[in-house]
C-alpha cells in the first residue's frame, strides 16, 4: 500500500484498500425481535420505513385498481361499463389514494426514514417515537379513507372544490376529508423529524457541503411538508365545517367565495407536487453517479436547485386557477412566477446529463429506471410550460393534456424514481439481491407502457377533451383504447417487481455491504444494518464529499470495492483504475466547459 494523500480530499488520512466485509452485525435490525408486536412497537427508523413500505404498497395496489377501472370504462365512449357515478368515484379514489396515501409518503417515509439517519451517520432519527406515531397516524388516516371508499366512495375529485363538495355531493365527503386531514399530520411528523435530524445529528465531518444530494432533496421536501401541510389542514377543517353545518366560509349564499378554497387548497397542493417529485430528484442524483462512476456534475447547483424549488414552489399555486375567476393581474403575476420554477428543474436535468459525460456507465435496473425518469420527467416538465403560459392554459386547462402532463411528472418521474430507489437500496434494506434480468425487463416494460398510456392523452387534450369525462365524442375512442392498452402494459410492468422482489427475500443471492460499490455512509454498514446502524464503538467520521467515484473512495475515505457490471476484476476494464489504490488518488480534477 502506498498511501498518498490527495490535497483536494480534505483530511483523507491515506488510502486504505477496499474494506473487508464488516462482521455480520448481531443482531441486524430484522433479527432484533421477530414477533408482530416487536414490529408494531418498534422505534427503529429502519423498521418504520419497512412498515411504511408495506402500507403504501397496499395503497398503490388499491389506487392501481381504481385506475384500471377508470381506464377500462374509457374504452367505451358512452360510459358503457361503469355508471357515471361509479366512474366518478373510481377516479376520485384513484386520485386521493395515489396522491395523499402513496406519492406523498412514498420516498420520504419509506426511503427517507430508512436512509436519512444512515446517510448522515446517526443512530436514529431525532424523534423515534414521533416517527412511529406518524405511521399510526397515517394508518388512522387510511382507515378513514377506506371508510369513505367502503361507504360508497367520494365523487368530488381529489380537489374537493366547493360548493360541489359542500352542497352537491351525496357521497362520503366528510370521512374522506378527515382521512386526508389526519394523514397530513403524519406527513408533518415525518418532515419535522427529517429536518431536525439533518440539522442536529450529522456525524462529525458531515458538513452541509458533504451531504448526499438525497439528503438535500429530502430536506427540501420536508420543508414543504412542514410549511404547506398545515394550510391544507385548516382548509379541510373549514370545508368539513361547511359540509356539516350547511353554512361556512366558502359559501357563496352568504357572500363567501368558493375560489378562496382553491387558493388555500393549491397553496399546499401545488407545493405538494414538489413533495412528490423532489425525493425522486434525490434518488436520481445518487443512482446516476454510482452507475456512471462519476462525481455529480455541479453539486451545489443540484443541491441549491432543490432548495430553490422548495421556496419558489410556494409562489405559483394560482396557475391552477387561471380560468377560475381570479383577477387578471393576479393571473399575470402567477404565470410569471410559474416560469421561475421551471429553471431549477432544468438545471437538474442538465447536470445529470453532464454527469454521464465520460463516465463508465452500466445499466442495472436502478440506472434504467433513472434514465427513464430523466426522459419522462423532461417531457412532463416541458409540457408544464404550456400550462404555466396563460394563453395556452386557457385552452389546455382541465383537459387530458393536464392529465398527461402530471402523470408524466408523477408516474413517469416520481414512481420511476421510487422504483429506482427501491431497487438501489433493496440489498441494503433486505440483505438480498433480486433478479437482475427480471428487474431490467420490468424497467423496460414500465417505460414503454407508460409512453403508450399517456402520449395519446396529450393529443386528445390538445383537442380539448375534458378530463373526468366518462362520455366523450366517439371520434376520440381510438386514442382512449390505445391509452388503455398502454395502461395494461404498464400494469404488467408493475406486476413483475411485485413478484421478484418478494421472491428475492427467499431465493435471492446474499448481498454484501456495498453491492453497487457506492460511496454513501449507508453502504459502510452491513446489509441489513444493525439496530443502531453503525458499530457503537466506531461511529463514522466523514472525510470527504459524497460522490468521489473517480477517486474510488467512500465518504469515510476508504477505497471502494469492485463495482458490478461488465468486465469484473478479471475483465479488461477491471482493475484498470475504476477503483482501488492503483492510481486514481493522483487524479487531477478536470475542468470542462
Amino acid at each position, binding site marked *: 500500500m502506498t498511501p498518498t494523500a490527495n490535497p483536494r480530499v480534505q483530511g483523507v488520512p491515506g488510502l486504505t484498500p477496499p474494506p473487508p466485509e464488516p462482521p455480520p452485525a448481531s443482531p441486524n435490525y430484522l433479527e432484533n425481535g421477530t414477533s408482530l408486536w416487536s414490529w408494531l412497537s418498534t422505534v427503529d427508523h429502519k423498521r418504520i420505513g419497512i412498515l411504511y413500505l408495506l402500507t403504501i404498497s397496499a395503497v398503490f395496489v388499491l389506487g392501481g385498481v381504481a385506475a384500471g377501472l377508470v381506464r377500462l370504462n374509457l374504452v367505451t365512449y358512452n360510459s358503457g361499463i361503469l355508471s357515471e357515478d361509479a366512474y366518478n368515484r373510481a377516479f376520485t379514489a384513484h386520485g386521493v389514494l395515489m396522491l395523499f396515501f402513496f406519492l406523498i409518503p412514498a420516498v420520504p417515509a419509506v426511503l427517507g426514514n430508512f436512509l436519512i439517519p444512515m446517510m448522515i451517520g446517526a443512530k436514529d432519527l431525532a424523534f423515534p417515537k414521533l416517527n412511529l406515531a406518524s405511521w399510526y397516524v397515517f394508518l388512522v388516516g387510511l382507515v378513514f379513507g377506506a371508510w369513505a371508499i367502503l361507504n360508497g366512495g367520494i365523487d368530488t375529485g381529489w380537489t374537493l372544490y366547493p360548493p360541489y363538495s359542500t352542497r352537491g355531493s351525496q357521497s362520503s365527503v366528510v370521512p374522506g376529508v378527515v382521512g386526508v386531514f389526519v394523514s397530513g399530520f403524519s406527513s408533518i411528523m415525518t418532515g419535522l423529524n427529517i429536518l431536525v435530524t439533518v*440539522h*442536529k445529528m*450529522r*456525524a*462529525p*465531518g*458531515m*458538513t*452541509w457541503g458533504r451531504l448526499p444530494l438525497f439528503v438535500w432533496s429530502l430536506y427540501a421536501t420536508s420543508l414543504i411538508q412542514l*410549511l404547506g401541510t398545515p*394550510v391544507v389542514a385548516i382548509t379541510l377543517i373549514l370545508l368539513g365545517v361547511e359540509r356539516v353545518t350547511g353554512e361556512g366560509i366558502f359559501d357563496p349564499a352568504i357572500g363567501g367565495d368558493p*375560489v378562496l378554497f382553491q*387558493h*388555500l387548497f393549491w*397553496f399546499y397542493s401545488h407545493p405538494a407536487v414538489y413533495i412528490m417529485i423532489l425525493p425522486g430528484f434525490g434518488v436520481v442524483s445518487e443512482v446516476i453517479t454510482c452507475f456512471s462512476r462519476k462525481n455529480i456534475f455541479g453539486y451545489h447547483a443540484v443541491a441549491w436547485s432543490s432548495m430553490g424549488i422548495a421556496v419558489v414552489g*410556494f*409562489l405559483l*399555486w*394560482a396557475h391552477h386557477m387561471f380560468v377560475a375567476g*381570479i*383577477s*387578471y*393581474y*393576479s393571473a399575470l*403575476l*402567477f404565470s410569471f412566477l410559474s416560469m421561475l420554477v421551471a429553471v431549477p428543474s432544468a438545471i437538474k436535468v442538465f447536470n445529470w446529463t453532464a454527469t454521464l459525460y465520460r463516465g463508465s456507465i452500466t445499466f442495472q435496473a436502478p440506472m434504467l429506471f433513472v434514465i427513464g425518469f430523466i426522459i419522462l420527467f423532461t417531457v412532463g416538465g416541458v409540457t408544464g410550460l404550456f400550462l404555466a403560459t396563460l394563453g395556452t392554459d386557457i385552452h389546455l386547462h382541465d383537459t387530458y393534456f393536464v392529465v398527461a402532463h402530471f402523470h408524466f411528472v408523477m408516474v413517469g418521474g416520481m414512481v420511476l424514481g421510487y422504483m429506482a430507489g427501491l431497487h438501489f437500496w433493496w440489498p441494503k434494506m433486505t440483505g438480498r439481491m433480486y433478479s437482475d434480468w427480471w428487474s431490467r425487463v420490468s424497467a423496460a416494460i414500465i417505460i414503454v407502457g407508460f409512453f403508450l398510456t399517456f402520449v395519446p392523452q396529450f393529443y386528445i387534450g390538445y383537442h380539448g377533451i375534458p378530463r373526468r369525462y366518462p362520455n366523450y365524442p366517439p371520434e376520440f375512442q381510438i386514442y382512449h383504447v390505445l391509452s388503455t392498452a398502454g395502461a395494461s402494459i404498464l400494469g404488467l410492468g408493475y406486476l413483475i417487481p411485485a413478484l421478484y422482489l418478494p421472491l428475492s427475500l427467499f431465493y435471492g443471492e446474499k448481498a454484501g455491504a456495498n453491492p453497487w460499490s457506492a460511496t454513501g455512509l449507508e453502504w459502510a454498514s452491513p446489509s441489513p444494518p444493525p439496530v443502531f446502524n453503525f458499530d457503537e464503538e466506531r461511529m463514522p467520521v466523514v472525510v470527504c464529499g459524497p460522490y468521489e467515484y473517480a477517486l474510488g473512495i467512500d465518504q469515510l475515505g476508504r477505497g471502494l470495492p469492485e463495482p458490478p457490471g461488465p468486465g469484473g476484476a478479471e475483465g479488461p476494464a477491471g482493475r484498470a483504475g475504476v477503483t482501488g489504490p492503483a492510481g486514481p488518488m493522483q487524479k487531477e480534477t478536470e475542468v470542462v466547459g
Partner: protein
Amino acid sequence: MADPHSHPPAHGTSYDVTKDADTPGGLFAVYLVVLLLFATTFFVSSSGVLGRYALFVQLAIATVQAGVVAYYFMHLRQGDRVVTLTALASVFWTLILFVLFMSDYMTRHRVVTG
C-alpha cells in the same frame, strides 16, 4: 448552520442548564409591557380615535406583543440560529400566503377593458 463539531460538550460544568435561567424581575417587566400593549389595543378600539386605521394599529400592536412573547418568554434570544431561522420562516411563509392571495383579492374589482 450548526456545524456538528460546534455542539456544546455536555460534560462537566460547561453545559449548565441553570446558567441562562430567567430572572423573575425581567419576566415581570415583559409581562407588564404585554399587558400595557393590550390595554392600548382596547383603548384604541373603544375610543374610536383612529377610525378606519384602528385595525392596522391593533394588528401592529399584536405583532409587537407576539414578538416580545417570542423573544423573551419563548427564549428566542437564547436560541441557536436554526431556531431563529425557523421562526422567521414561519412568518415569511405566512407573508407569502397573504401577499400572493391578496394580489388576487385586491385587484379583482379592477375591470379590464379592451
